[in-house]
């Protein structure tokens, strides 16, 4: 929607005045110049304006200023104060009205606030493990290098569930010099009532703990399987849990952890253990939290410094 053209006398006079002043400055050409010249010859007001503009232009160009009353030469103190230094450059940068201080400070503060929100919101960082592990998705549990080796391979939930199922045993296995887990009668004494992973009617995930059944433990199955994460079926997992006692390679460590469940731990206790270890570790959030706080403080500090120094310069 275009505004209606203004045909009032005031608007016409303003338009004529603009043409006349442009004519006086020599900025017109072609038809505009002809129109302005016509106005200047036919309109008394336009002619008067043109004459006044010429007079004023001459008077302005002849404008005399008062003599200076100050000597602007620099003293040694001035020079010392003005010589570039790192600190002065920084202060000048902070106090400059059109420098990059404000955008930079805003960006830092925004990053800091976002970081604080992310680190303090449940579900991020360590909290993510809680939500994922309950669904049986691959999770690399913290604190167990051997467990991580098994859980990261193949994306299968089976070895991870196994790792989650026996954390204390895995930790103890990892703590041993050669990574070997106790087997034999102690391991074979694990509760036989635990469901076999992958068996019909069993639920994958934490409930499908690969606790070795007495049958699998008692079997010879001397073939070591380096990576339990590659094992697709429960039988293979059971086989892996029955590895030789001197199996001490790093790849075998996850397998050892599956059979290292202390016999005194009941299934209920085993099910309860992952819940406690899924709590986010405090040290996981410390670094991003501190980083976010540092960004926030830096951003607000820059803003305050810019404001204070500009105010001081303005006064």
């Amino acid at each position, binding site marked *: 929607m275009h505004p209606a053209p203004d045909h009032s006398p005031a608007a016409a006079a303003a338009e004529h*005045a*603009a043409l006349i*002043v*442009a004519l*006086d*400055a020599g*900025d017109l050409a072609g038809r505009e110049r002809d129109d302005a010249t016509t106005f200047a010859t036919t309109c008394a007001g336009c002619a008067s*304006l043109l004459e*006044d*503009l010429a*007079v*004023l*232009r001459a*008077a*302005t*160009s*002849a*404008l*005399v*200023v*008062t*003599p*200076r*009353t*100050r*000597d*602007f*030469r*620099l003293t*040694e103190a*001035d*020079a010392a104060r*003005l010589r*570039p230094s790192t600190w002065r450059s920084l202060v000048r940068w902070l106090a400059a009205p059109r420098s990059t201080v404000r955008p930079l400070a805003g960006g830092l503060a925004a990053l800091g606030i976002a970081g604080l929100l992310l680190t303090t919101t449940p579900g991020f960082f360590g909290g993510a493990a809680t939500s994922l592990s309950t669904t049986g998705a691959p999770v690399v549990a913290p604190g167990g290098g051997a467990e991580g080796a098994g859980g990261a391979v193949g994306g299968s939930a089976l070895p991870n569930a196994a790792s989650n199922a026996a954390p204390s045993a895995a930790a103890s296995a990892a703590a041993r010099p050669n990574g070997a887990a106790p087997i034999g009668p102690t391991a074979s004494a694990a509760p036989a009532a635990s469901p076999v992973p992958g068996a019909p009617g069993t639920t994958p995930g934490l409930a499908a703990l690969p606790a070795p059944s007495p049958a699998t433990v008692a079997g010879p199955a001397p073939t070591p399987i380096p990576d339990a994460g590659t094992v697709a079926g429960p039988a293979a997992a059971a086989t892996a849990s029955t590895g030789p006692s001197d199996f001490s390679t790093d790849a075998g460590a996850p397998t050892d952890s599956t059979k290292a469940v202390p016999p005194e731990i009941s299934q209920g206790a085993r099910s309860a253990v992952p819940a406690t270890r899924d709590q986010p570790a405090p040290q996981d959030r410390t670094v991003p939290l501190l980083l976010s706080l540092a960004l926030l403080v830096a951003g607000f500090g820059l803003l305050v410094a810019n404001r204070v120094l500009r105010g001081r310069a*303005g006064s």
Partner: protein
Amino acid sequence: MDDPRPRSPGDVTRAAGPDDATARRDQILVERALAGDLAAFNQLVEAYQDLCHALVARMVPDPDQASDAVQEAFFSAYRNLRSYHGPSFRGWLTRIAINAAMDLQRAKKRRPVTPYPELDDESWQPPAGPDADPEAIATTGERQRVLVAAMGAIAPDQRAAIVLFDVEGYDYAEIAAMTGVSLGTVKSRIHRGRLALRGLLADRMELFRS
């Protein structure tokens, strides 16, 4: 250069294109100043302080503010001397002075100013030659007083553009480069400023026609 009297308009026009001897002298003084010779920089100050003061005093109505702006311009020039790469020290310094005057007026826009009270004093008259007519001197003084008052009443941007165009003799493109605005904006400021001056002085035009 120690003569504090203002230069005639002809002396301060056409800042661009200094002669080679002046340019060479300025370059030598700049190099010495960059090496730490304060006396060399002060020679440059002596050479251009009248020019800068004459320019800034026309742009800034308040005399104290004008002097502050000129001093700040020389401070800024000394501080940023390493950023000068030629070809004209005069043009470089003029740009700094214009920016200092504009910045100062923006910073102290709301502060009331008294535009050159010495012009209100009847005892002050512009410098004149020995054979000047007393009546003409009085008329010129009154004209100056009225014109300075009117210049102080228009917008600072318009005043700066008019001074640079009418007094200093820069063209549109040079003013646009100095003030950091488009060429059309420069034209518009000059046109509007002249119309504003004419509106302010409409009832005193006989003084100028005479």
